[in-house]
């Protein structure tokens, strides 16, 4: 049996073992409400504030107080659940997963001599069912496990063809191994928080919960959406308006883009009227298929900028501003 110490739990407070540890101490929520424990509540609140600003909460694990590191995480969850604001929970999960990511990477790296590798590998194995093994100081995972995660990354270096592959395994550095599971780690922590139910909280928690509600107001609805179409979509519409032929991939772009902006099949269909091969029934059928209301039920997503570039459908302007998908065009975050 792998022994997980309190220092490990301070690093990875989302592990099931953390709850067990707390139970064994016999500490109850009621007791945490006592003013002696107020520093933990403050620490927990601080942890959320740091996360909500997009920073990563740093812990002093060399200090003696690993208990309060662990407890502040658990109290933070209670505060978040009581405030009940999804944006905060999401930001917190993300920041906490980045924090855990740092420790995982460190643990993988420093213990690649196998002495102490059990814990990080066990976390990856238990939480995400990926078997990671070691070959000559490098980490190896099975090709299908790799592909299922790496396809969500857009950088070329993550394409399988740009990795070292041998005998069905992909070779990765500690950093890359951890990067690969980032999203899942975030989702795991998020799900873990979602699964917690909080009935009543100690009085001493209440003012901090109110503060969280106030804090969250800053994040609500801060995106500003331009009504202007991105240049690739404009180009497609122009081609159709002129009655010229737009290739299938261009039509697919228009349909998926406009659907993603909330237009309906009936609103989009007339756009294709000028196409040289226009057929009302076919157009409707295809639009419905793309929208997911008929056929396999798959709702097709707008193709990425990279895909459009390779199809010669990208007409990027400075306004595109580094987006990776046309649907992001014109969305700017107002600084809170």
């Amino acid at each position, binding site marked *: 049996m792998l022994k997980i110490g309190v220092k490990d739990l301070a690093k990875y407070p989302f592990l099931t073992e953390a709850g067990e540890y707390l139970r064994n101490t016999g500490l109850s929520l009621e007791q945490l409400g006592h003013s002696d424990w107020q520093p933990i509540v403050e620490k927990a609140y601080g942890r959320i504030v740091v996360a909500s600003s997009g920073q990563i909460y740093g812990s002093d694990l060399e200090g003696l107080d690993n208990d309060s590191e662990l407890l502040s995480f658990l109290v933070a969850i209670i505060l978040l659940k009581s405030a009940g604001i999804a944006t905060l929970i999401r930001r917190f999960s993300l920041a906490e997963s980045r924090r855990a990511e740092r420790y995982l990477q460190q643990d993988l790296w420093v213990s690649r001599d196998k002495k102490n590798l059990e814990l990080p590998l066990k976390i990856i194995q238990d939480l995400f069912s990926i078997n990671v093994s070691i070959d000559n100081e490098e980490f190896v995972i099975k090709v299908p496990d790799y592909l*299922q995660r790496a396809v969500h990354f857009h950088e070329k270096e993550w*394409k399988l063809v740009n990795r070292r592959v041998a005998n069905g395994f992909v070779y990765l550095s500690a950093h890359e191994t951890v990067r690969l599971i980032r999203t899942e780690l975030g989702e795991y922590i998020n799900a873990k928080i979602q699964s917690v139910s909080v009935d009543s909280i100690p009085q001493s928690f209440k003012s901090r919960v109110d503060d969280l509600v106030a804090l969250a107001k800053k994040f609500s609805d801060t995106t500003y959406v331009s009504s202007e179409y991105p240049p690739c979509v404009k180009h497609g519409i122009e081609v159709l308006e002129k009655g010229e032929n737009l290739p299938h991939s261009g039509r697919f772009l228009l349909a998926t883009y406009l659907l993603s902006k909330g237009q309906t099949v009936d609103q989009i269909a007339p756009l294709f009227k000028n196409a040289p091969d226009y057929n009302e029934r076919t157009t409707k059928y295809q639009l419905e298929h793309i929208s997911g209301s008929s056929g396999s039920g798959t709702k097709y997503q707008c193709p990425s900028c990279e895909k459009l570039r390779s199809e010669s459908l990208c007409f990027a302007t400075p306004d595109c501003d580094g987006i990776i998908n046309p649907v992001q065009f014109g969305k700017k975050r107002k600084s809170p």
Partner: protein
Amino acid sequence: MIEKDVSLIQSAFKEYYFNRFDLIHVPQRATEREFGYQKFNSGMTRHLVVKNDKELHLLLMREVPSDVYCSNAYYTFPNLPMSEKDWKGADLIFDIDAKDLGLSCRKDHTVFKCSSCNNHATEFRSQCAKCGSPKFETVSVGCKNCISESKKEVTKLVDIITTDLNVSKEQVEVYFSGNEGFHLRVTNVDYEQLGSQERADLVDYLMFNGAVPESFGMKRQDNSKSSLPTFDEKGWRGRVARRLFSSKSKAPKITREIIASGYSAFQVQLEEIKKTMGVRVDPKVTMDIHRIFRLEGSINSKSGLSKIHCTNLDSFDPYLEACLLGDDTVDIIADCPVQIRLKNKKFGPYHTEKVSLPKYAAVYMLCKGLGNAV
């Protein structure tokens, strides 16, 4: 297709489906797969369940389809509409087609058929010599070179999937497609769950698409610090090294030369390697996790040849081994301006003339649109 042609072809197909039960089997896990078929001059019937060989044989004899298909995917309910089938996984499939290989021999065995008057020409013209129409269909007939070049692609593919991807040889089945190429099916549980995007990236790996110089140790800046892969490395790094250096002893000298020529020159070299060493498969087929794929043992209506298992690829001759229709003679009006070779016999060229041919050759020409039943 005109009725007379259909009935000649159908009778030949029926005879095959009646006599060659030994060649026609459902694939493993048949009850989890979707089947479909097409009849001549008619649409596709799909979402069928065929539980075993017996049901398959009955279907073939009852319907005499022009083409028969079976899903690479496994479903809980294969007979329900797509959205309710409950996808469980899919075999990895590959399609290698000679027409995608850009071979120079293609012009020697491609016939241009005028879409309006059916006049045939062996060379491309912008207009039909007979009626002036600008629209043509192209028909390609069997060619030894096309087959041997396609085999090379199969060999490359099998090599990469068995070494880099750790798929065992027993898990790879190679089939002649029934027309101008090969189909491969890989049954390996590790890969079964992969979705379409994952398969697309896997195909890019096999085709050597999207490789960047950095992955092979070439630096864009401070290029003198580059270190190229070594001869004995596995995967593409080793393959690239072996191609670039050609022998171990030349490696240090060539490495210096490559690094001196710089990043962009290396990028060009990688492009070249892609053309020669990348496997040319049809990416759409491999990416499709709901495809119904031609069933092994069935006849391909583009040619009248069967899709059959190739146990020995090197010696495999599709125009002998996959040509399985009867050899009693039938009369047709052949309009086949190029010579074809089937079962080691030569036929044609024929210029709109009535000829008596063995059934397999007659059906081949009819399927290709290069003749009509009398």
